[in-house]
């Protein structure tokens, strides 16, 4: 089963677990599995239309899903999916 790495700031919604194992066959299914199991996560990852928020990036392995098939990107048992918040700022 594929593994999702939970970013540190969102681990309070996963009982402090750093990873989540999913049976999802696509990124969309995997995220749905994650946010259904840990429903406090949903509003931080998905917008009102259930799309991935613009300031959240999803990587499959080392690749941004926006360069693949977006949330229809297929995942396998050996896939590592990363949820990545935008980090930026300045004075």
């Amino acid at each position, binding site marked *: 089963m594929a593994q999702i790495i939970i970013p540190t700031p969102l681990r309070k919604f996963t009982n402090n677990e750093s990873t989540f194992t999913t049976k999802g066959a696509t990124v969309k299914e995997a995220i749905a599995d994650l946010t259904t199991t840990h429903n406090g996560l949903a509003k931080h990852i998905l917008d009102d239309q259930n799309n991935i928020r613009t300031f959240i990036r999803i990587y499959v392995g080392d690749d941004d899903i926006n360069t693949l098939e977006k949330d229809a990107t297929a995942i396998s048992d050996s896939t590592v999916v990363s949820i*990545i918040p935008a980090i930026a700022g300045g004075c």
Partner: protein
Amino acid sequence: MNNTQESANAREYKNTRTRAHDKIKILPQALEVMQKDGIESFPNECCGFLYGSETDVRQIELAVPVVNSKEGDQRRRFEISPLAYMKAERFAIENNTTLLGVYHTHPQHPAIASEHDLAKAMPYFSYVILSVIDAKVDDVKSWRLYDDKRAFYEETVELENFS
């Protein structure tokens, strides 16, 4: 909104909230890395990840610089690439440590969290800001976001060997 107004707003908001944590200890080796990065990057902003442990007090044990990937003028902006962030989370898992926050510099500006910092901040993380004035680190402050993301509160920073 300028920094003074923003800080006043944050202070007013803070009075209505309860803080989960309010102290952060930065070990000398981590501070040294941040100071060196800030000075060498001046007049541009630099940035990096902060790792450590958390019991009663959040303790920063390791600072790791990363490339400021902001395109264009980096004197007042920083950005960390998604790939760098992904590697930082993996590093933490592989090394049994915790990614506790991000540092960056404010060249020729105070170490006050700005509206740009607030716009993309995440709860839980400590945002350590070093004010670098004329290529010298002048001040170090740390900021943390309330859970509802409306404002930062300032953490009490405990430093050793800072002068």
